[in-house]
């Protein structure tokens, strides 16, 4: 609870309007030649960092867009985008 997010289209909104879409793991791996292990890692393994991570959110009760934000998982607050992640 207690999260506010900045939707790139709608601006700052209550976290309840959004759906979490997981960590930003990059584009889907190529299907050809993909092993089961690689696939499971992409679909299910998370880094679960205690600190700043980049992640996906959907403004489900608003404009419906998926976007990336950086959030500090320790304070549960959005932080300015960090490029080095």
């Amino acid at each position, binding site marked *: 609870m207690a999260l*506010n997010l900045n939707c790139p289209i709608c601006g700052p909104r209550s976290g309840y309007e959004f759906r979490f*879409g997981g960590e930003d793991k990059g584009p889907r791996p190529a299907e050809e030649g993909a092993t*089961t292990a690689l696939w499971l890692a992409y*679909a299910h393994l998370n880094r679960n960092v205690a600190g700043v991570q980049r992640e996906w959110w*959907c403004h489900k009760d608003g404009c419906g867009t*998926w976007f990336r934000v950086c959030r500090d998982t320790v304070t549960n607050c959005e932080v300015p985008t960090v490029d080095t992640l």
Partner: protein
Amino acid sequence: MERLKHLPTLRIAARQPITLRFNGRTLAGCAGDTVATLLYGSGERIFGRSLKYHRPRGLYSLDGECSNAMMTIDGMPNLNAELTPAREGMRVEPQNVMGSLKWDLLGGLDHLAFAMPAGFFYKTLHKPSWLWPRAVKGIRRAAGLGVLHPEARFDQRCDAIYPNVDVCVVGGGPAGLSAALAAAEEGLRVALLEARPRLGGFCDYRVRADAQGKPLHQWAAALADQVRARDNIRVFTDAPVVGAYPDGRVAAFQRGGPEDAFDLRYIEITAAGAVVATGCIERPLLFAHNDRPGVMQMGCAHRLLHTYGIRPAADAVFSVAHDLGLEAAIDLHDQGVTVHCVADARTDGQDPLLIAALEQRGIPLRRGWVAHTAHGRSRLRAVTLGTPAGTFRQRIACELLVASAGLTPLTGLVTMAGGQVKYDPRTGFFLPVRLPPNMQACGRLRGLHDPAALAADGTLAGLRAAEGLGCRPQRKIAAAEAALAAAPGAPRGSKWLAAPGKGAKTFICFDEDGTLKHLHQAMAQGFDVPELIKRFTAIGTGPGQGGIPGHNLPLLVAAGQASPASDPMPTTVRPPLVAAPIAAYAGGRHDMAKRTPMHDAQVAAGGRMERVGEWFRARRFGTDPGAAAEIMAVRTNVGLLDASTLGKFRVFGPDALKALQRVYVGDMARTRPFRTTYAAMCNEDGCVIDDGVVIRTGDNDFYITTSTGRAAQTVEWFRYHTRYDGWDYHIVNLTDAHGVINIAGPNARKVLEAMTADDVANTAFPFAACRDLTLAGGIPARAMRLGFVGELSYELHVPASCMETAWRMAEAAGAPFGIAPFGLEAQNTLRMEKGHVILGSESEQRTVLHDLGLGFLWCRTKPEAKTVGALALRDTADQPGRLKLVGFKMETPGDGPPRDGSPVVNGRIRGYVCTARHSHALGEPVGMALVEEELARGGTRLGIYEDGCGGRLRYGTVAPMPFYDPEGTRMRI
């Protein structure tokens, strides 16, 4: 007991009597009473029995800081009588009582206290191992709080609101009121939360004059009036805060009265700035038998008198350590209570005006003295006062001992939101030293006490909050700073901890019966951190949320440390700050169901409506639970189904096909213009999540349908799985924009022919085709020939606004055949006879496409699409040990179909029945089941366990599907 009538601070309506039942007797009070004050005013002194030792407990505070006043009220256990407004006819029962309040059968446990040392629950009775489960039963019965009866039902009106404000002020005392006013005057929107029913805080009940000679209660009331007069301050009283969170969220819950639209309301405020002005609670005075009924805090005695008009006793002794205690003694004396003596733990530092007032009244003041022991069993008879070391002692008979070691600031919100507190030796308080961004703290929370200082500090906090939001009140800030500097600063606090002795009956924690001795035992065993001692001794873990021991525990631990230099460390405060009913968090039950355009028409036609996901749909028409007539009409004649709840979407744009290839497991490149393609979506694990049809309606333009349950998530799903690709396509949800009429049965074409001039002959509009038709009156309809129920059938998608006209038209066109609507029950049987699945009925979380025999829907040759679930489908294609969907018939058809969900038991549970119905077409029951692969071969005997079968299995045999019209000729006619 007669109430005092003419006090200016009274907050009761003495002329509005209220009666309630307590312990089988009728007691009277008046409007404005809490249950606790009504009981006390009626002469009740024992409120309950303590958790472990069954000691009698009475009224101690008035703000629900301990479990003493926890009672079962109208069947609801563990309500704090101090916080529950008295209402006419309430049934109130004390808790944890064996026998009667006065003669508790387990009262003798008190004498066995030596056998229950600190950590007792962790260490004792665990060996031999058989003992513990039995012991635990006995302990549970003897200890504990109220009992919730399984049949109890509570008709509470719950609600939830989520206000958005600029500044949220917590605390409606002088500082909080001043802060709210200051921020509001800057034009900001302010929310003010107060836990008590009234604004005014600790000035609401005080008659002492401020520097201008105005009684404090009047001064506070004037502030409150100013706040209430402001349009941009929203005031919530009776609203204790449960938590504050780092990004400006404050959560509270509010108790409503009969005049409110709710009994409980969850309030979650999003604020750009917060001001914490929560003030102080009292620090309990520690001495032997400090928990006896008749011992209470200074604020409790003072408020009983001034707010509720109750003289707490005929005579009293005070052992206090704060000027508020001296003030209470003077006020009690002035209202006719004999005050024998006031012991003040402080040797100096008292307000000279108060000392003069005591002298004037002939009340002896013993500086540096404290209470050592309270005497009496079920209620207080006398008290022994003395010097700290006990060199001089005096025993005084009295009915009431007002005992308090001073104050404790309520800093929980500050630390919870990420701020920091530090022990301040001068005040003896944990004071905020670092505040979270956008949070201000003010008032007694910062150690201040003088009214002028509180007002200036509150104003300053409100202005600073405004400044943080872009206002520029610099001149006002300077003025407030000057006013604060001119006002008296934080007074010195008392260092007094506890009377000497072992402390076996000196209670640090009332909730858990935790004593000073327990604390010493824990420290002797090596525990040296309050946080750990709290867990080992359970001190501070009770329903009072640490209100009583919260401050004494860290001070005592620090005093007992080898290194006296170490600062006291407070225990971590976590939400909820006060015991909050779960129902408050759950909020209201707002049913947000949707109705199709044909809802009322179906109800008028006898439709039994039920919830399907977010929709209301007709289960059946008429009284037959099996809907036989509806089924037969579709098989032999024609029926009408409202299928408007289907998910309907337009997907278009240059990259639309790529998006479809990503989420559908089939090859969407093979879709042909205006041909329906049955297609499925899987999740990353290959589990089927949706099925529907895909129709290519133009270049880069598609119309798709989804199941009712997936309609809400489909847009999100498409966008999620294409989020990295930046593709140029759009998806539009048309679910609510289009209604769907399904005309099904051998006579369906004749009905449609009467509705449109377009050619709908089998040659012009064959099976699996899609046509854009124009119905009579110019209604556009996208029509599809699908075979879900296994007969000739047309699905007409029409604009929702035209839905009723089209439906009436179909009814008129079908009238010569006796067309009638059919519902979900009929559809369910019809499609099951055809072996068609409904996801959720014939699948569960783990069911992959292959398990349903739908593996052919998956296209292996489009890896470039990176299809969601494709790799999992590859890995599960021949995976052993999966549940497979099979059809089955019953060995004794006359017994009817087994119930849906019945387990399949062949030696052990090896699957379950998904759907089973009597087939009118076949004249016997048929069904579908998910079973282990070894049982999926045709002819395998399935044992079916039905609820209430008494262990006698019923038997079915795996049979080929579809059961009805396996060649599929009937839907192609």
